[in-house]
């Protein structure tokens, strides 16, 4: 059998949705963050698959994109964890479902 672009995209899509589910369901901020990172990974996978598939006139763009996504992801993670720590310091918890001071 032959592997086609769709195979990789499918994996990407599944990974993305899995990450989404995790991000939406986890109680712990760090847990949510993991989901988000998985989503980004899925995006990266998709991008690379595209740039490799030969669809792209300029495959390099995909790679560049991924490089930036990875960078941003790192920054985001750093900030996220920092905020988590700040929250923890204030509230002695990082369980975001307990963060509901703000409503009504």
């Amino acid at each position: 059998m032959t592997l086609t672009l769709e195979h990789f995209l499918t994996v990407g899509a599944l990974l993305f949705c899995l990450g989404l589910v995790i991000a939406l369901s986890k109680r712990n901020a760090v847990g949510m963050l993991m989901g988000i990172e998985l989503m980004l990974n899925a995006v990266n996978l998709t991008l690379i698959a595209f740039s490799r598939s030969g669809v792209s006139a300029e495959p390099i763009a995909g790679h560049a994109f991924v490089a930036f996504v990875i960078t941003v992801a790192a920054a985001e993670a750093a900030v996220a964890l920092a905020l988590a720590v700040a929250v923890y310091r204030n509230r002695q918890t990082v369980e975001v479902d307990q963060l509901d001071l703000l409503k009504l």
Partner: protein
Amino acid sequence: MSELDIVGPQIAILLAAGAVLVWDALLPKQRAALPWLALAGVAGAAIWTTTWVVRGDFQTAFDGTFALDQFAVFFQYVFAGITAIVIIASIDWVEREGRRQSEYYALVLTASAGLMFLAGARDLITIFLALELSSIPQYILAGWGKNQRSSEAGIKYLLLGAIASALLLYGMALLYGFSGSTLLTGIAAAIGENGAENRSLLIVATVLLIAGFGFKMAVVPFQMWVPDVYQGAPTPVAAFLSVGSKAAAFAVVMRLFFEGLGEEFLSNDWAMIFAVIAAVSMTLGNVLAIAQRDIKRMLGYSSIAQAGNFMIGLAAISIAGEHFVLGASGVLLFVAAYAFTNLGAFIAVIGISQHIGSDRIADYAGMWRRAPFLALALAFCLVSLAGIPPTAGFWAKLYVFNAGIRADLVWLVIVAVLNSVVSAYYYLAVVRQMFLGEARGEARLPVSPTVGLALGVATLGVIVFGIVPTPLVEAAREAAAIFATG
């Protein structure tokens, strides 16, 4: 070198950010100078932009990934204005908060640089990076306050923002995969070539983009974070969020959707979606705002409703033909007017709340007695938000409605006008509290010069553009004109 010249304004601001940090490190005793240093950077950016206006040879750079055109210039001015006002308005709060002031200003400047980049970005990668450059500092700023609410707002904002940008990225990836290019022009070309047969993909990609930017615009159903974050974040930051990222999001959506996804068969779809989202946002935002007791939360909901009004313009743009300029310029006008108005409102809230230590509308009763200037300014801004003449807000609404009507979106405009009735109700309710309510405590509130200055500027803008909107309108039209040619 010319390429650096093109991004000069952003560079100026970033340099200022650096300078602020260095200054704080070297002369920790001269903290008072920090905000003015930051303002100098903003001024520099504005001046630099002006030189471009004078030079007038607008061009794209970096292999077409970035453009400096009237559109970008317009927004650079808007963002410069926003940043300046926010910085001035922050001074008091920052001093009281006591945290490292330099970082605060540095982050605000960085974020505004990101916004400015967004205005000119014409390439998916650049757009994404600029977006993040503006977002991440805002996440941090939202969590800047010492209290629990602030950090809670920060982390909520960040997590949701991250999810949104992941969706956005996936959409971008799909677009890239389809067109093989990250340049808007390239995407447009590919769509023109064989877009029609792959509509499903394009639609999903579009929707993902809408989700990503809709989050920043704060439109239903991507808006739920808004009230929480506005309420929790430090008020100056909330002010910054409410106008800065919203405006930027609209700027980039206009460029992206019009230059990249402007193809007829596609634009009909997203125009329809924009129209629906506009209607829903307005209605939901207004209805929810009615019952709010916390003024910042109320402003949050109102900003959702306002986003709905912006969107009428977007929906109108998509109708090709000579009228779309009207829609585009309508959005721009609205962005500018809204920036002044909403900033004014938030700053007034800063001025009042910092003294009475409460954001409850009920506590604003009788403000007219205790702080005439603040009350009057706030009243003006609220009236302008309600879109009642003679204020900038009225012209913005008028212009957008006009665009909507010309784009055969009469039903939407009717929804909008009815909504403006509802909004008039809760805006005026606040005004009523301030002017007719029984004052709680007779002590007159002091108005710090900086807040006064910022508020004065904003309110003046509201009134001046309310009486002579022509220059603003002109600018908006020139800025929008690029789409006519493009």
